[in-house]
């Protein structure tokens, strides 16, 4: 095993990890804000990416505008889902299981709709920073991957700042901690829950848009991303969106290191074994307890 191979594995691990992190952060944000486990988080990624693809290729928008459009699409779908479905079910005091069923159903419907409207083809997006690569000791990492990592880290920091330094962010946290206390402190709890879904949709879409130049987007990508994002979120402590960042990176790195350290055949076995061990040792997730202090 050469240093170059280890480095390559680290590059891949971190890149994948940040993608898992972005999806996981959205999932965690939604859970934190509404106690809904969003099984369609990965679909936000697909919606965001597909919208960007369509705006770029069919509508001829400039890339930056198309990306913004894709992110907005994710946010809007999030808002729509909250207003159309979640709010109604919350009024009827639906249980957490019911919400999970709802989001599973939505995930399947959305995936099928995308198959219907867009077809089976996979689509790519232009990589940020061009097709160039950075080569370190024979290990290759695309400029786009570096951008992805930078944006991912930026998003994580921005999310933390958002929650603690903006009124809306604080209000969203407050609404999720104690709805009655929040309402009597002048916070519109229902609106905060909508914003939570908007945030989740936005983060999911961003993850999808950023990952598409590397792996392409198709109607099946959503489910894969949801699973990985969920693992990242749980690993990091489900109520702490920033924990999802740590969880995602951990998952990505464990996968890569398992491939080079043990064998590619056992990658999933090893990755999930490690996750299980972590969960046993830290049942609240890696940043779980910090999450209880508002992360």
């Amino acid at each position: 095993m050469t240093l170059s191979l280890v480095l390559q594995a680290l590059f891949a691990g971190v890149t994948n990890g940040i993608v898992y992190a972005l999806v996981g952060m959205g999932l965690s944000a939604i859970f934190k804000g509404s106690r809904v486990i969003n099984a369609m988080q990965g679909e936000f990624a697909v919606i965001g990416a597909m919208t960007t693809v369509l705006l770029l290729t069919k509508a001829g928008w400039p890339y930056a505008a198309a990306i913004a459009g894709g992110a907005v699409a994710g946010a809007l779908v999030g808002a729509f889902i909250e207003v159309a479905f979640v709010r109604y079910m919350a009024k009827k005091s639906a249980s957490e299981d019911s919400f999970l069923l709802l989001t599973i159903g939505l995930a399947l419907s959305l995936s099928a709709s995308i198959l219907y409207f867009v077809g089976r083809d996979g689509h790519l997006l232009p990589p940020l920073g061009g097709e160039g690569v950075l080569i370190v000791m024979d290990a290759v990492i695309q400029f786009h991957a570096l951008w992805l990592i930078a944006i991912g880290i930026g998003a994580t920091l921005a999310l933390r700042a958002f929650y603690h330094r903006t009124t809306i962010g604080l209000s969203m946290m407050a609404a999720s901690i104690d709805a009655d206390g929040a309402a009597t402190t002048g916070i519109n709890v229902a609106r905060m829950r909508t914003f939570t879904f908007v945030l989740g949709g936005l983060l999911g879409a961003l993850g999808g848009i950023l990952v598409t130049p590397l792996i392409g987007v198709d109607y099946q990508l959503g489910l894969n991303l949801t699973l990985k994002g969920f693992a990242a979120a749980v690993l990091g402590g489900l109520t702490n969106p920033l924990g999802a960042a740590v969880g995602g990176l951990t998952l990505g790195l464990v996968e890569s290191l398992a491939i080079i350290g043990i064998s590619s055949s056992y990658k999933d076995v090893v990755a999930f074994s490690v996750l299980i061990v972590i969960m046993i040792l830290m049942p609240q997730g890696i940043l779980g307890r910090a999450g209880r202090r508002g992360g």
Partner: protein
Amino acid sequence: MTSLSAGYGALTVLRDVSLKVGDGEAVALVGANGAGKTTLVRAVCGLLRARGGRIVKNGADITATPAHDLAQHGLAVVLENRRLFGELSVRENLILAETVGRKARGAHMRFSWDEVTALFPVVKERMASPVELLSGGQQQMVAIARALLLQPDLLIMDEPSTGLAPKVVKDILLVIKALRERGMGLLLIEQNVGIASEITDRAYVMSVGSIVHEIGPGEWQSFLTDERLVKAYLG
């Protein structure tokens, strides 16, 4: 409020409740457990939809106003069990209220940040600390502070003394008295009639969802000494 009815689902808890709090008055609502006092509070502060009747404040009909808009009408509530945001710091709990209060009252802030922190020294000391680490009494102080920052002229307090040591209760009563001196209206829900009689001018007695007795101004003493009445209405 007049003829207020409210309930949960198929259950109607309040039937035809009417009570009044005048400007700057301090009124208590007493009664045994299960009398419907908390339901009343939830209905008044917009957490529960009234089924019948009206709630009017300063001429404005606030029966259907949602909880988060009540600060605009000068109403703030300190709920039972305080309902603070545990993971957040004291500062974060308070800032949320201050922003709302500022928007509701504009430039005429009756309770500025500095004033409130002066009123509650513990708040000043533990600003950065997560609220859940504070003691019960300290948390109660934070809850009151938070309500004040909403700039109310009528404060509703639901069982503020519950679960607190007598010394702490004393401190809280001092704060409430100070607020009263500044002209703050008060609707106090209390099981402990002794406490209620100390800080309010008059009271309503509730039982099984209705008001069964009124204690007029100056009538506290006679009520408390009449064992028959006390037993009959408070169990």
